[in-house]
């Protein structure tokens, strides 16, 4: 595609800040679990930092996202405060969901983080509804539905993309193709590129290097503009790679070692960092300072979380319905 938008210097820096935040938060998460300070099912987004970072700089707090268990990158990029996240995954009352949802169900409407789901394929049908709401109100908001390559084979994908196309909903379907669905390689489960499935619904489908911030930014901006203009949905297949096993503790023996080493050698975070310095957008000192600030914020969030209270057992009766149960 030609005439693609390029992020300006400030935006590039902001994309990098979000990427660095996601990477640092991932490293800390794995460390804290490893050290036994915290117990949670943890689905690392390491390697996939670019995608939500480059998308979300095109969004406002009023725009919506729906994401999945592997969603801390999407949530952080969309502005979820670290303290709220850490307290949630630590199961504390100070968490976004009072500790009741946990890492698979992080929700934060103040920043448009409307649903995090543990069911493959389920972001898409709900994202349509958020977008239908925007269409009805004419509020110009867009909704981003994140999901994995594995989710492109489930029924909900089909129904959702079709409905969005027929109703011209302001929604962007972002498939983060990290090559794996749990232990199964995408190639073993489909003969076709995910992006090529867009044609089955009469919607544009774009395959993009999801580890390239410039490409990702441009493709996202185009899709978001289309949606805001009332021109309907877009399917984006963002190619990336999952650096670790499916979930923390997964020995990942099924992943090809060379492919993985190669992906890690091309780690998008240090790569973009170097580029920013090279192109004069930032200095080493600036970035180091940014990263230090992130680390400090994470320190604080972890300590805040671990010092917070666990919910009382009466919480089992609350939030089941609007009215507390007897």
């Amino acid at each position, binding site marked *: 595609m030609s005439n693609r938008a390029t992020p300006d210097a400030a935006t590039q820096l902001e994309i990098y800040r979000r990427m660095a935040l996601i990477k640092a938060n991932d490293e800390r998460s794995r460390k804290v679990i490893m050290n036994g300070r915290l117990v949670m099912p943890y689905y690392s987004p390491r390697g996939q930092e670019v995608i939500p970072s480059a998308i979300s700089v095109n969004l406002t707090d009023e725009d*919506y996202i*729906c994401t999945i268990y592997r969603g801390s990158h999407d949530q952080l990029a969309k502005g979820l405060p670290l303290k709220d996240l850490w307290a949630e995954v630590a199961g504390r009352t100070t*968490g*976004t*969901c*009072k*500790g*009741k*949802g946990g890492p698979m*169900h992080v*929700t*934060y*409407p103040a920043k448009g983080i*409307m*649903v995090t*789901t543990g*069911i493959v394929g*389920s972001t*898409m*049908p*709900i*994202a*349509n*509804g*958020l*977008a*239908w*709401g*925007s*269409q*009805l109100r004419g509020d110009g908001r867009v*909704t981003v539905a994140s999901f994995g390559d594995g989710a492109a084979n489930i*029924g*909900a994908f089909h*129904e*959702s993309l*079709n*409905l969005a196309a*027929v*109703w011209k909903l302001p929604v962007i379907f972002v498939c983060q193709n990290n090559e794996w669905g749990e232990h199964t390689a995408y190639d073993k489960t489909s003969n076709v590129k995910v992006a090529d499935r867009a044609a089955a619904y009469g919607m544009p489908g774009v395959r993009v290097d999801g580890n390239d911030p410039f490409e990702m930014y441009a493709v996202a901006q185009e899709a978001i503009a289309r949606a805001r203009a009332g021109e309907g949905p877009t399917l984006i297949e963002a190619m990336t790679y999952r650096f670790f096993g499916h979930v923390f503790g997964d020995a990942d023996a099924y992943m090809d070692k060379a492919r993985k080493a190669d992906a890690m050698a091309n780690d998008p975070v240090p790569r973009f960092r170097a580029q920013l310095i090279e192109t004069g957008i930032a200095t080493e000192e600036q970035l180091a300072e940014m990263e230090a600030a992130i680390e400090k914020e994470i320190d604080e969030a972890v300590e805040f979380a671990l010092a917070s209270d666990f919910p009382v057992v009466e919480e089992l009766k*609350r*939030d*089941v*319905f*609007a009215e507390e149960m007897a």
Partner: protein
Amino acid sequence: MNAETPMAPANIVKAAKANILQGINAAIADAMEEDENVIALGEDLADPEEGGVCGVTKGLSSRFGEHRVRSTPISEQAIIGAAIGASLVGFKPIAEIMLMNFTTVAMDMIVNHAAKLRFMSGGQTHVPIVIRTMTGTGFASGGQHCDYLEAWFAHTAGIKVVAPSSPKDAYGLMRSAIDDPDPVLFIENLPTYWSPAEAPEKGHRVPIGKANVLSEGSDVTIIAYARMIQEAMPAVAKLKEAGISAELIDLRTIAPWDRETVVKSVARTGRAIIVHEAVTPFGAGAEIAAVLNEELFGRLKAPVRRLGGAFCPVPFSKPLETAFAPQTADIVAAAEALVKS
């Protein structure tokens, strides 16, 4: 006549009063009139598609626009998902799943999402949707079109389940379901759509969770809902002739059901029969029976009886279909046996 009901009984009267279908239609219309956030979606729902296969939503899209009353592709997951999403941002969607058996393709959206998002988000979001669905034996639709699955949803925390048996209740429960801040499954009984009865007043509400004592009695309490009320009413009359005074409770809400009214009644009569069209084992009747036995231990005059559908898929052949669901005679016989025992 309509798509899923080829043989609406010939004796259906479009009466001056109102029928259940009209009650539901009026409730949705009045709610849409009052609140622009009330929207509706489902297969064939809008007027170019005749307002649904039975015409329950007829006239609504013409009046409120096809953007608010939308026909959809045959995509039940997408239908419920769209309802959930819109509800998260302040709309009050009414989603139709044409027949209750088709909830089976949307259970993830209903159970894992609609019912749970409030809790899992710690109360930050909630899902004020109504899911309309119809079901019931009587039209020879066979094994995949008639199941009553209310027990599944009643066993799911976070969703309410109602099943009206009269036009007034249909109106009042629909209004309450739309008002409700949480998801409500609204079960419509196909064969009773057209039975005329007292018309509802505009704005009428039937509180969710409140049963209705249709007939007072002292010897036995009959607890039923949906079409089973039509079988139970004549049973009450017949029992009276036989000198047995039966109290008939229309449960109206299956979850959360009205324990107070039911327990109080059975405490008085000492005998209870629960009647539903769903198959008996592990049905809603089991919960009611279990609670009655817990609450009234040692005070019952006879064991709680459950009358439900036969434990098989709904059969096609007429005599089998008729035998499948409890009938007036079964209720009478059960009550007589209880009183004698």
